[in-house]
Structures are given as C-alpha cells and as structure tokens.
C-alpha cells in the first residue's frame, strides 16, 4: 500500500536534519533518502525579497494530490513536502521535498517528479521586490518547466 505523504504549507523555515529524522527515526527499512531544497536566488543582487502568494487550501490539496501520485508510482517509505509562502529573502529556503525508500533510484525519481509538478501545478505565484523599492512584478512561468513534465508520461 502506498504511504500517505506529509504536506505542509507554512511561512516558517524548515530544518533538513529534523524533517529527515522524522521519516527515518526507529526504522530499518530505509536505504536512501533524497532531499530537494529550493532556495531564493538573486544573482543580480537587486532583490529585497521574493513574495510567494498562494491559494490557501488548494495549495495543500494540490501538493497532496501530486505527492500521492508519486507514492503510487514509486515504492517509498516516506514522503514530505514543505512549501513556504510570504516574503522570502535571497538565500533563504522556499521548498523542501524529502523522499525515502529502500532503494536509491525510487527516492531520486520521486523527488524529481514532485519538483517538476510543483513548479507548474502548485498554486503559488512569485513577485520580486526590489532593494531600490517597488517591485519587478510577477515572475513569468517558464515554458521549459511545462515541457519537463512530458518525460514523466507513462506509456
């Protein structure tokens, strides 16, 4: 039976060791844990913060739906997704996916799948706020994020 994912949408930061520990504590059937952390980039040094607007309720529901698909498709012992909302400073964490499995490839693939679908299906929108004041508007969705999904099509 597929495991039930843990999904949280929160303003607060998360801790990698603590969240991983929740999935692995007192278990001896886990051979592999893959974590993905998405961070706020600011290569130009212009940003004061990235503001993440979300659709409360649907955000949790949609992430849960995607996570359950991953848990159906790969044999996992645990799956956690934490997505932050609100203002996030450059260098800070935005999103965390943790996939635990007996075997390494299932953990890698499930985490990779989750991230691809979160990018284009989870109801979050990013606005760039500038150090100079004001904002650069809403970040555009990227075509290649949509294209990345096709590799997960099953024949």
């Amino acid at each position, binding site marked *: 039976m597929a495991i039930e994912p843990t999904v949280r949408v929160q303003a607060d930061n998360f801790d990698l060791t603590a969240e991983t520990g929740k999935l692995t504590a007192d278990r001896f059937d886990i051979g592999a844990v893959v974590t993905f952390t998405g961070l706020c980039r600011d290569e130009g040094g212009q940003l004061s913060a990235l503001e993440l607007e979300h659709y409360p309720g649907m955000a949790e529901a949609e992430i849960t739906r995607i996570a359950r698909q991953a848990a159906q498709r790969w044999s996992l012992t645990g799956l956690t997704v934490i997505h932050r909302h609100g203002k996030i400073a450059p260098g800070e964490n935005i999103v965390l996916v943790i996939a635990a499995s007996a075997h390494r490839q299932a953990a890698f693939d499930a985490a990779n799948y989750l991230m691809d679908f979160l990018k284009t*299906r989870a109801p979050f929108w990013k606005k760039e706020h500038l150090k100079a004041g004001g904002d650069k508007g809403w970040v*555009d969705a990227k075509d290649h994020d949509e294209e990345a999904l096709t590799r997960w099509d099953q024949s």
Partner: protein
Amino acid sequence: MIIRYFAWVREKAGREEETLSPPETVKTVADLIAYLATIDDNHAAAFEEANAIRVAIDQEHVEHDALIAGAREVAFFPPMTGG
C-alpha cells in the same frame, strides 16, 4: 458562487474575491470569463489575456471548457510559479 483572484489577475481585478450569481446562460468557464469581463473596466483588464488565465473549480485545476454547474468556488490566476 464565490469567485477568487490571485497574483496579477487579483491586482488587475482590484479584488481578492467576490460572490455573485451568473445568469443561466453561463455554462462553462469560458462563458464565465466572458461574463465577468463585462462587469467593469477592472474585470475587463483582468481577463484581457483570457488564454493566459488558469482556472480552478472547487480547488481543482480545470480547462476553460469545463462546466461550472454546481461549483461553489471558481478561482482565476496566472500560470503557477511555485517550487
């Protein structure tokens, strides 16, 4: 029916949500968009690029040809940029 707006759709519409009862001739999401765009200039601006707008009915993604019968909450927003 509760209508919700997010990101630049929200900013253009000038509101986060509103409750309204569209006429019976409004069957699909596309019909609803066409109807909402007639309300005022703000709504017209929000739906100007109708093709760019994504829709959820009761918190599930749907296409523009989806029927809205029975919908409690319809949300309009730009393509998502999560993760």
